[in-house]
């Protein structure tokens, strides 16, 4: 789960990291008022869950309250990578002596949280990694011991030769690590970490991504979710315990299991089609899930055919068949349906489908080929 900049900064601040005060506003006039309150130049920053806001024109420097109003008006309502900007953060523009980068990710190879720090901050760290890798220092943390003071100080000295700054940075490392662990993050990032002319080390921008598995067990984290800023169909799917990701093709896919769902998408492509989505109904075979899956998929107007690919292991295929029948009785489909079912209770499932005028194949390749064909304007299988 992605957090907004202002949310990440709130969490960092609560762990002691110095980060400039800011206001989150939804109206241009409030932006002007906030700028007036800060009494100097401000930044107006789009609060959306995507990277590259700056390049997309979502971050602007404003000298006056009037300019802040103007720029906020332009940014609010703007669409960045498909997401509409509904909030902007107004923060005093900082006088910057130097910019560094500090990030923590969970690294699957080392199986540990790993710090990445670089004195070349303010820009895209992946670019630094690709072009000047020697400017990045990596440090894996053994969570059994936590980030040790000497390790934090080593990272601090990698950023600054001045001992006072190195110590301040070391403190930020400790605080960011604490925030990372306490919030159940998979990523936490300060970019840039700046030194003000007064010699203070301040987090000017903050980013946090929370492990979805942590969110599941902690309602306090769920409260940070901004469903407004996500694809409504994906939010809908999540609320019904489905994993759904919208894609650009025309073959809607309903599959049980993530690996099989990906393989199904791949096979659609293999046979010349384009998948319209990833959709995993998971291991349990509640017919209600099937009903919701069909409802969500059919809201996508690009979808020209719907493909079910169910391998019944834990999932009972008769449950899936019942779900399909229930769903299309309530809301008749306007696009053709191709069903592949095999495994647990396969015969019963076939019987249910046949009795309701539907047919199904037991073969994955056959079904995918048929779905691609009908989506392209061929005849329904």
């Amino acid at each position, binding site marked *: 789960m992605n957090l907004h900049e202002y949310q990440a900064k709130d969490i960092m601040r609560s762990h002691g990291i110095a980060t400039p005060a800011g206001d989150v506003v939804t109206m241009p006039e409030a932006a002007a008022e906030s700028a007036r309150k800060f009494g100097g130049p401000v930044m107006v920053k789009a609060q959306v869950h995507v990277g590259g806001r700056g390049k997309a024109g979502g971050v602007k420097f404003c000298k006056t309250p009037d300019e802040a109003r103007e720029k906020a008006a332009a940014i609010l309502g703007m669409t960045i990578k498909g997401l509409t900007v509904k909030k902007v953060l107004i923060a005093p523009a900082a006088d910057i002596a130097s910019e560094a980068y500090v990030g923590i990710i969970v690294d699957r190879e080392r199986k540990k949280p790993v710090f990445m720090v670089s004195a070349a901050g303010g820009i895209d760290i992946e670019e630094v990694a690709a072009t000047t890798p020697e400017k990045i220092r990596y440090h894996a943390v053994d969570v059994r011991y936590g980030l040790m003071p000497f390790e934090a100080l080593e990272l601090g000295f990698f950023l600054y030769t001045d001992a006072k700054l190195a110590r301040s940075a070391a403190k930020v490392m400790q605080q960011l690590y604490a925030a990372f662990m306490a919030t159940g993050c998979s990523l936490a990032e300060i970019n840039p970490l700046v030194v003000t002319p007064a010699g203070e080390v301040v987090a000017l921008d903050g980013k946090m991504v929370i492990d979805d598995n942590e969110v599941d067990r902690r309602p306090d984290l769920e409260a940070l979710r901004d469903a407004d800023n996500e694809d409504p169909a994906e939010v809908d799917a999540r609320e019904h315990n489905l994993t759904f990701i919208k894609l650009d093709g025309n073959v809607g896919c309903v599959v049980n*299991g993530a690996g099989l769902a990906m393989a199904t*998408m*791949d096979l659609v492509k293999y046979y010349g089609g384009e998948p319209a989505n990833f959709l995993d109904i998971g291991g349990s075979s509640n017919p209600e899930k099937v009903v919701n899956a069909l409802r969500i998929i059919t809201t996508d107007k690009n979808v020209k055919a719907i493909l079910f690919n169910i391998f019944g292991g834990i999932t009972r295929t008769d449950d899936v068949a019942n779900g399909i029948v229930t769903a299309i009785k309530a809301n008749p489909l306007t696009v053709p349906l191709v069903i592949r079912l095999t495994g647990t209770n396969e015969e019963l499932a076939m019987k249910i489908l046949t009795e309701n005028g539907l047919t199904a194949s037991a073969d994955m390749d056959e079904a995918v080929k048929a779905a691609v064909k009908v989506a392209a304007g061929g005849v329904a299988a």
Partner: protein
Amino acid sequence: MSIFIDNTTRLVVQGITGRDGSFHTRQMVEYGTQVVAGVTPGKGGQTFEAVSPEGKPVAVPIFNTVSEAVKATGANTSVIYVPPPYAADAIFEAASSVPLVVCITEGVPVLDMTRVYPFVKERGARLIGPNCPGLISPGRAKVGIIPGRICAEGPVGVVSRSGTLTYEIVYQLTRAGIGQTSCVGIGGDPINGTNFIDCLAAFEADPDTKAVALMGEIGGTDEQEAAEFVRDHMKKPVVGFIAGQTAPPGRRMGHAGAIISGSSGTAAEKIEAFEQCGIGVAKRPLDFVELIRARLSMN
């Protein structure tokens, strides 16, 4: 022969009285697995009823703790069906008492796994999973949730990061008359206890395994490392598949580990690694049948 589990496996089920635990315990017993104990704190002293392959009733004793269960029954393997918030503790408990731990639970926070991983290593235990279907050695034992009837005894080792995709491929192999020594689902999470290389090494060492089928996914570099291992350390033929060729970067495809980050973890680079290291590449699941058959006939 087989890897990790066989006729000598004596299984304790953590969470035996839960919804998933009770269902799959019955399945495992019915398959012929020696389920010797269950654990549900507070239900120690009760028994869990199941039915043997021969149709006879089996009463599995329930204990409050794994250590009690192991002491009383000599269990040497544990399988975990407990909800995600308690899964890490269940793994700690299991790894403190038995050398093989299989965690089926999906949704274990990755930071929990950063603590679990070194603990299991320190104990010298093997963890399979979490977020995995477990494993099966056809005709010998099954630990986890892989449907027994789609498998058959035979010469192919199967290792995979996903669940139902594995079933699909195993099913196609079985239908084509190609059986398996063992099928291992290592799980789709970013940090898991056993990786491809561990399984490949075990299959290489298993005299009955003649070829290996490997199902990878987008995300991470485990498949690339597995490919190098195959090139450098394996004599047996390997056929591989990567799911997620059409997945967009930056979106997590169901599995917590299945995500293309930046330019790394793509299906294309994994397939290239397979090709460079002499792994046969199945473009679609169905291709496994012919690729494996061809390699078996070369022996």
